[in-house]
């Protein structure tokens, strides 16, 4: 898989530090599963984390803590049930290429989700709302389907999970990580050869800017309370 668009190094640093909203971390994690280059960078960044971790001024430990930890040690080797036995329905999700970080939201394949109608060529499945109010959703665009012109109130992160789309600034394929700021006005179009499924994280609702689609804004606000 050739991945062309990556999270920038500051974002990858925040992921390595565990200091980004989990909704964003979800997108970065999905990207990392598909991008060995970024995984190698993450390894290096974790070493930076471990370096500063090691340089902290140590904090005195009480005897109580030590006793309490030692009391909980089992003598026998315990094996992690999660990593050793395949979880239920793993095959459906793996076969349809669902990233592992999304297993918590998707029981089987993408079809098993509750898809809502957005426009004739677009369906949306809401996954969750993060603590900071960001909306996490999957978008499914039919082959050749067009989204309306829109801008964002906040930042929008898009991770292409399947297929490809293009907009004014280029073509984005499976594995690509795309960030759009509040000033970017764009109109994504799925490529004609297959449907396109994207994971999106939206800080604030999008604004449709097209003449005919502006009436959608109040509806959209209702869908994103």
């Amino acid at each position, binding site marked *: 898989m050739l991945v062309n668009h990556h999270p920038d190094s500051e974002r990858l640093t925040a992921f390595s530090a565990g200091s980004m909203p989990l909704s964003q971390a979800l997108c970065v994690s999905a990207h990392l*599963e598909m991008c060995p280059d970024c995984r190698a960078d993450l390894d290096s960044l974790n070493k*930076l*984390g471990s370096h500063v971790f090691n340089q902290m001024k140590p*904090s*005195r430990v009480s005897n109580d803590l030590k006793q309490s930890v030692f009391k909980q040690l089992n003598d026998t*080797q315990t094996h992690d049930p999660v990593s050793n036995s395949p979880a239920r329905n793993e095959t459906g999700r793996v076969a349809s290429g669902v990233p592992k970080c999304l297993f918590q939201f998707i029981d089987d394949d993408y079809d098993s989700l509750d898809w809502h109608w957005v426009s004739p060529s677009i369906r949306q499945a809401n996954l969750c709302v993060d603590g900071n109010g960001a909306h996490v959703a999957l978008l499914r665009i039919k082959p050749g389907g067009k989204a309306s012109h829109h801008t964002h109130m906040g930042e929008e992160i898009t991770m292409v999970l399947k297929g490809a789309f293009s907009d004014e600034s280029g073509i984005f394929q499976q594995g690509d990580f795309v960030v759009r700021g509040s000033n970017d006005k764009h109109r994504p179009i799925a490529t004609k050869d297959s449907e396109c499924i994207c994971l999106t994280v939206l800080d604030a609702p999008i604004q449709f800017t097209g003449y005919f689609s502006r009436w959608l804004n109040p509806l959209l606000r209702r869908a994103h309370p």
Partner: protein
Amino acid sequence: MRRNCKTGELFCRNSDFNNDIIPNDHGKMLNNILELRIQGRPMADGPTPADKQKGLQLHLKKCIERVAKKRDKAAFESLFEHFAPLLRAYSFAREPGASLMADELAQVVLIKIWEKAHTYNSNKASVNTWVYTLARNSRIDLLRRNGRYTTEIDPEYLWQDLEDESADPFVSMQHKRTEKTISDAFEHLPPDQQQVIAKVYLEGKTHQESADELGLPLGTIKSRIRLALQKLQLVVRR
């Protein structure tokens, strides 16, 4: 003790670190290892900090192996003495004054070390890096469960599998080089870059929160991180 004043109370210098953190018996063990390691070499000035660091890494690695294979509690005690004070400090960096949480984090991570020692792969990462990733994941989970931040997202699978994959031998050669490079180069970073890295990694602050607290524009925070990574030669492509 000389502290890096610009990065605040979180850091102490490398040379202080060894004296501070290793209690007597642990230190003795370490010195024995160091002597073994440098036998036959003139030792006019004693072991250098780099030698000590190397010896410590080797010692921690052996302890993990003994815990994994023999369920050796003495070896585990060594790991406890080394990591428990750091884990508490790491918790305080995020939640100052939260003493219960500091103990809870130390406890959770140390028990993970005991239970998951057999999954540690020394080709993939040093013990320090492995424990750092356990600490980071556990801190996020603890903050979430304590309701310090609310989210519907379960962090468990966001990091774990990506970092547990077995390493390819070329990568592991590279990782040995970079661990040394990082610690050498970090000390030479300008204090303002060190400070931002510490905020992001130790205090767990988002770039925006770091910007707010330091009274700097968001762009400045990002460019300091970018410059630091360039100087550390950490990220290759971007």
